[in-house]
C-alpha cells in the first residue's frame, strides 16, 4: 500500500509526522503506559515493604523489619526449599523431555505436524485449567489411582497429591506437561537450523546416530538451552496459578511457593508491608537469574560483532 503525500518544499517534517502518527500512537502510548505501570508499581511495592502497612498502605519507616519477619517465617523457608526443588527438577526435566521429543520428531517421521501440535497444545491451556485437571487426575479417589483400582489392581497406590513429601512432585509433573512442548519447539527449531553440511561431514567421518548428536549436533544447541533454562526458571519462580489450582499450597503448607506466600500475606492476612517485602525478595531472585542472562547475551552479541 502506498499513501501519496504532498510534501510541500518548506514543510516535509510536519506531514511526515502526521503520516506516521498512527505508528507512534500504537507503539509509544502502550509502551510508555506499561513501562510506567511496571516501574511505578515496582517502586511503590519496594516503598511499601519498608513501611509498617497492614490492611492499608501507611507512611512510616521500619527499615528491614518486614524482611527479617518474612525471612524468619516457616512459611517462607518452606517456600524457598520448595522453589529450589521445584525449580531445578522442573527445569531439568522439562529440558530433557523437550529435547527428547525434539530429537524424536527430528527423525523425519510421518505425522510430524500433528504430533508437534499435540505437544505444543498444553501451552495454549491456562495454568488454572492445567492445575484443576491434574488435581482430578492425581486425586486418589477420582483419577489415575481409581482407574487402576477399577481395572482390578487394587494394591496400586498413587497418592502423591495428598502425600506431604511427594505433593511438590505433582506440581513438577503438571508443569512439565504444560511447558515441555515449548522447550521442544525451541529445540526442534535449533535442530532444524544445524548446517546440513555439518551432518554430511559427520556422516562421512563415520559418526553413528548417538555420537552425531552428542558430539556434533547438541553442542550447537547450547545457546538455545540457556534461553530455555532462563525462560523456564522465571516461570518457576513466579509460579502461582498452577499451584493454587492443583494443591493450594497443601497438604498443609507442604507445597508452599513464594508467590503463594505473597498472596497469603497481602490478601489473606492483610499484612501489606510483609507481603511487599516477600514480593521484593521474589523480584531479587528473578533478577539473580535474569541479570546474568542479560550479561551473557551482551557478551555474546559483542563477540559476534567482533568476529
Amino acid at each position: 500500500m502506498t499513501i501519496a503525500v504532498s510534501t510541500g518544499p518548506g514543510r516535509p517534517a510536519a506531514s511526515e509526522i502526521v503520516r506516521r502518527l498512527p505508528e507512534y500512537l500504537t507503539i509509544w502510548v502502550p509502551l510508555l503506559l506499561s513501562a510506567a505501570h511496571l516501574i511505578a508499581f515496582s517502586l511503590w511495592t519496594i516503598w511499601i515493604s519498608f513501611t509498617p502497612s497492614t490492611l492499608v498502605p501507611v507512611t512510616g519507616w521500619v527499615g528491614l523489619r518486614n524482611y527479617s519477619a518474612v525471612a524468619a517465617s516457616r512459611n517462607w523457608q518452606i517456600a524457598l526449599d520448595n522453589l529450589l526443588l521445584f525449580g531445578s527438577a522442573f527445569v531439568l526435566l522439562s529440558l530433557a523431555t523437550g529435547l527428547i521429543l525434539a530429537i524424536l520428531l527430528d527423525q523425519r517421521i510421518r505425522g510430524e505436524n500433528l504430533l508437534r501440535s499435540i505437544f505444543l497444545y498444553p501451552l495454549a491451556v491456562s495454568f488454572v485449567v492445567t492445575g484443576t485437571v491434574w488435581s482430578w487426575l492425581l486425586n486418589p479417589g477420582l483419577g489415575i489411582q481409581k482407574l487402576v483400582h477399577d481395572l482390578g489392581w487394587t494394591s496400586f497406590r498413587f497418592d502423591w497429591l495428598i502425600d506431604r513429601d511427594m505433593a511438590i512432585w505433582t506440581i513438577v509433573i503438571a508443569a512439565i506437561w504444560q511447558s515441555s512442548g515449548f522447550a521442544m519447539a525451541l529445540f526442534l527449531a535449533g535442530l532444524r537450523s544445524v548446517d546440513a553440511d555439518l551432518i554430511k561431514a559427520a556422516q562421512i567421518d563415520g559418526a553413528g546416530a548417538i555420537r552425531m548428536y552428542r558430539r556434533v549436533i547438541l553442542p550447537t544447541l547450547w545457546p538455545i538451552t540457556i534461553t530455555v533454562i532462563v525462560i523456564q526458571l522465571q516461570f518457576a519462580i513466579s509460579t502461582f496459578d498452577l499451584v493454587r489450582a492443583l494443591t493450594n499450597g497443601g497438604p498443609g503448607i507442604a507445597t508452599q511457593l513464594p508467590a503463594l506466600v505473597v498472596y497469603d500475606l497481602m490478601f489473606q492476612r492483610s499484612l501489606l508491608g510483609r507481603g511487599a517485602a516477600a514480593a521484593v525478595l521474589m523480584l531479587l531472585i528473578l533478577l539473580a537469574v535474569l541479570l546474568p542472562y542479560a550479561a551473557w547475551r551482551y557478551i555474546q552479541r559483542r563477540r559476534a560483532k567482533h568476529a
Partner: protein
Amino acid sequence: MTALSIRALSKRYANLEVLKGIDLDIESGEFTVLVGPSGCGKSTLLNIVAGLDRASAGTVEIGGRVVNDVPPKDRDIAMVFQSYALYPSMTVRQNITFGMECRHVPKAEQEKAVANVAKLLQIEPLLGRKPSQLSGGQRQRVAMGRALVRDPLLFLFDEPLSNLDAKLRVEMRMEIKRLHQRIGATIIYVTHDQIEAMTMATRIAVMHRGVVQQFADPDTVYRYPANLFVARFMGSPPMNTMPARLEADSSGLVAVIGAGRPDEVRLHLQGYDAAASYVGREVVLGIRPECIAEGDRAFAGATGAPVVVTAPVEMVEPTGAETIVLLRLGGEPAQARISPDVRPAPGELAPFALDTRRICLFDPETERLIA
C-alpha cells in the same frame, strides 16, 4: 587404475530429472573438475558419489567396488565442503581426529597423523583453537586437513573456495594444485568457476542440464569445445560465436560472415576438411577473443600472410593487462583482446589481425563442433 567409474547414472526428484545418464571414468591420481552453471547437477553428482544422496538408476564404483549400497563412511572418501562444515564445538585438533575417533584408531596413531597433516598444511599453531577463532583461509586449511588425514582413495571438493575473497581464492587455488602434485591424490572438484577448472584440472567435465557436455583435458575443452554451450561457458570473455556461411573457392574453404553485406568478412580456412560437407550452408563460427588482435600482431607459429580485416570499433574497455574491444565483423558483434597500449577510438575503423587457425565451426542445428 580406475579410481571412480560412474555408469548410466541418473537422478530424479518427482518430475525433475537432475542427472540424465552420466558416464564418467576417472583414473587414479587425476584432478577432475566438474564445472557448470548452478543447477546443472554437479553437486548432486558429487553427493551421490559420496553416498549422501541416492541415485535413481546406474552404478557408482570406487576403486573397483560397486558402492551404491555402501554408507559414506565405508566408501573410503573424504570431502571438503563449501561452508567448511567444521564442528564448531571442537578444537582444530578434534576436528581433524574426529573421523579417526569414530573408526577407533589408537590415540598414538591419531597424534602422528595430526602432526603430519598439520605440518603439511602449516596449521600447527592453530591446533588448539576453535573454528570460530579462525579466518576463512585458516578454516579452509583445517577442512582440507580433516580430509587429508584420512588418506582416502578419493577426495571430493564441493566448491571449497567460493566463500573466500578473490585474493585468497587465487592463493588457495595454487595451494590445492600444489598439494595434488605433491601427494598425487585422486580429486574430484566441483565448481561453477571456469577459471578454477582451467587452472587446476587435469581433466574437466563440463556439465549442463544434468548431462556431461564434454569430458577432456583443459586444453582440449578450451581449444575444441564439443558444442556451443561449452564454447560459451569456458573462457572469459567467452568465445565469440556468430552465424557464417561456408563457401569453397580455388584455395579451399571460406567462411563468410555477413554474406552479401558490403562489409562482409571472408576468412580462408585451412585444415577444416571435416566441414567440407557444410559448403553452401550456414554454420556457427566461433573465435576466441584472444584470436582477434591489433592489426600488426603476429600470432605465434603462424605461417604465411597474416589475416587482417578492417572493422568498426564500438567500445573500448582498458583492463590494464589488455584492452578489450567490442567490434563488428560483417555486422556481427565480437570481442577482441588486444595489447594494453593500443587504444582504437570508438566509432572509427581499425585493422584487426585474426588467427584463423583457431576458428571453431559448429552445426547450427545440433550445436555440435564440426571442425
